[in-house]
């Protein structure tokens, strides 16, 4: 097991290298010239050229890539073209809101979606099942920003139960912190909940047909134990997989959600950086997101062994 984890961690290195190359190249071939943006409309071609040289953009592609990778390995993500602050510092400042949003959304989504899927499967074909499925289709098809504005309108503006937008750091207390996160988490989580609920239902339906479920019934096990112990543990692998894949959904959705609810997180940072063609920042953020995704899926591969003893590495 330990050897497996070490091997898997080592295997992420080539993955991350490819990601790095891709992130770097994407911006290299993207249209627009940061030197021109910084120089402004009045600049002469010589000014632009000077700025480009000062940014090191005149050096050959491979040289720039090599230098960039070398810096990253030392923990240096470069300096923002726009603010002149180190990218790592800018990310650090924006990390907490995004991380909070993701974690709250993840917990909320899993704790709602899994029981929903289990109950739908247990009551397949009934009103409850149809309701869950209808909810899943709705959650899937309504975009995050629509759900977000709708929620903000109803629960913040009309009912005044929760703040409209903004973010309060965790250091100022749990309740102010969570208050600001509930609406964004629900908005961001709706697609995620729909996805997990559907997979849970499908996976449970298959498991509930199995012979060992009949054995559990014949032993006198109660419905709850059958569903949540005997069946859910067997149904867990696809559910955990989709939770992992869904992290990508959350990252994408976070960008939009943070805009809707004015949360000063990495999503906003990304959007701003793209608009300003702030290459080092874009590269840093995308690299961080990719790294998170790879890490989460590594974690999930390891989780499989907890749920299914037949999986051995």
């Amino acid at each position, binding site marked *: 097991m330990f050897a497996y984890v070490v091997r898997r961690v080592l295997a992420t290195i080539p993955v991350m290298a490819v990601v790095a190359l891709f992130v770097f190249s994407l911006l290299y071939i993207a249209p627009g010239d940061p030197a021109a943006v910084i120089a402004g409309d009045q600049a002469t071609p010589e000014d632009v050229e000077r700025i480009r040289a000062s940014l090191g953009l005149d050096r050959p592609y491979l040289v720039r890539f090599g230098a960039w990778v070398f810096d990253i390995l030392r923990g240096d993500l470069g300096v923002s073209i726009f603010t002149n602050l180190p990218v790592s510092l800018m990310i650090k400042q924006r990390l907490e809101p995004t991380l909070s949003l993701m974690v709250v959304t993840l917990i909320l989504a899993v704790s709602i979606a899994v029981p929903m899927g289990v109950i739908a499967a247990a009551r397949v074909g009934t009103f409850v099942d149809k309701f869950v499925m209808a909810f899943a289709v709705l959650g899937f098809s309504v975009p995050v920003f629509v759900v977000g504005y709708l929620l903000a309108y109803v629960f913040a503006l009309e009912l005044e139960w929760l703040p409209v937008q903004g973010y309060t750091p965790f250091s100022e207390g749990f309740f102010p912190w969570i208050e600001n996160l509930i609406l964004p988490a629900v908005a961001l989580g709706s697609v995620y909940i729909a996805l997990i609920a559907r997979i849970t239902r499908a996976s449970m339906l298959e498991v509930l047909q199995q012979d060992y479920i009949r054995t559990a*019934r*014949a*032993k006198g*096990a109660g419905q709850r134990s059958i569903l949540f112990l005997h069946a859910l543990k067997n149904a867990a692998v696809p559910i955990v997989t989709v939770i992992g894949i869904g992290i990508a959904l959350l990252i994408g959705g976070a960008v939009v959600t943070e805009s809707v609810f004015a949360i000063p997180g990495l999503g906003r940072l990304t959007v701003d950086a793209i608009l300003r063609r702030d290459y080092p920042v874009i590269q840093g953020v995308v690299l961080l997101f990719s790294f998170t995704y790879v890490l989460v899926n590594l974690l999930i591969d390891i989780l499989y062994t907890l749920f299914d003893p037949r999986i051995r590495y």
Partner: protein
Amino acid sequence: MALLEVDNLQTHFRSRDGINRAVDGVSFHVEARETVAIVGESGCGKSVTAMSILRLIPEPPGKIAGAIRFNGRDLLKCSDREMRDIRGNEISMIFQEPMTSLNPVLTVGRQIGETLRLHQGLSAQAAENRAVDMLNLVGIPEARRRVREYPHQLSGGMRQRVMIAIALACNPKLLIADEPTTALDVTIQAQILDLMRDLKRTVGAAIVIITHDLGVVAEVAERVIVMYAGRKVEEAEVGRLFRNPRHPYTQGLLGSMPKLGSSLTGVETRLQEIPGVVPSLKRKLEGCVFASRCAHATDLCTKVAPALEEKAPGHIAACHYALKDALAA
């Protein structure tokens, strides 16, 4: 009073194209410590009968009617809660597929212990210790180590032993075994049957064994119930049934059984098959259920359903002509 009395059991399934009368008016009884076999070919309602006793039939689409009295108490009138207390405790069941009947993600010890924790309120530790005892009882070596293992680490025969351990953990009064040896190879079959016979003696449970294998019947059963198309067509003490089957269907079953070494004795005896298939149970059958496949069927058979009659002491059959020796020969 018999331990189990099944009275006019009817288990019907509603489906899109009509009602499937899987079991249609079956009655029988099982005395304490007795071994009764239910035989018949695939689709005759044996398994559904067994599942109905424990009410493991999903309702709907299934519907169980009649009466199933266990120690005088009608199981069909019990609440779900009461049924759960009976299942695995007073009546337990072993299934045909040892490969798939155990939960693949729980340890063997946990699965045996679950019954004990449910019905006897044992702690996790006490349940595990009892699980080790049970594994020893069913003849699994290195029980201490095995309780921590998962089903996929065991062979088919071992898994069926584990199933037996689960079934017998709470000393049930009745054990229902649904084709317990069908999925196992022959040497393992014999071991499992021996084990069941031994344990029956130690635990003192009555057994209802469901099988299509007449060899198994001869081996373990004291009394035999022959089912066909959801009905009981014959019932007798095992020796009597093999010597003197009254119902043409039973005769057909016995005739289709290969005899060991028969090809070496020089007598070329072709195995007798029963022509045709079990009729669809979707529509109400007129007359004798076996008439369409019976070589002796007459007009009477296709029109009037024969009642179950006692043809000899303790020997019941549902056939208009079963009394005639010509048929029984």
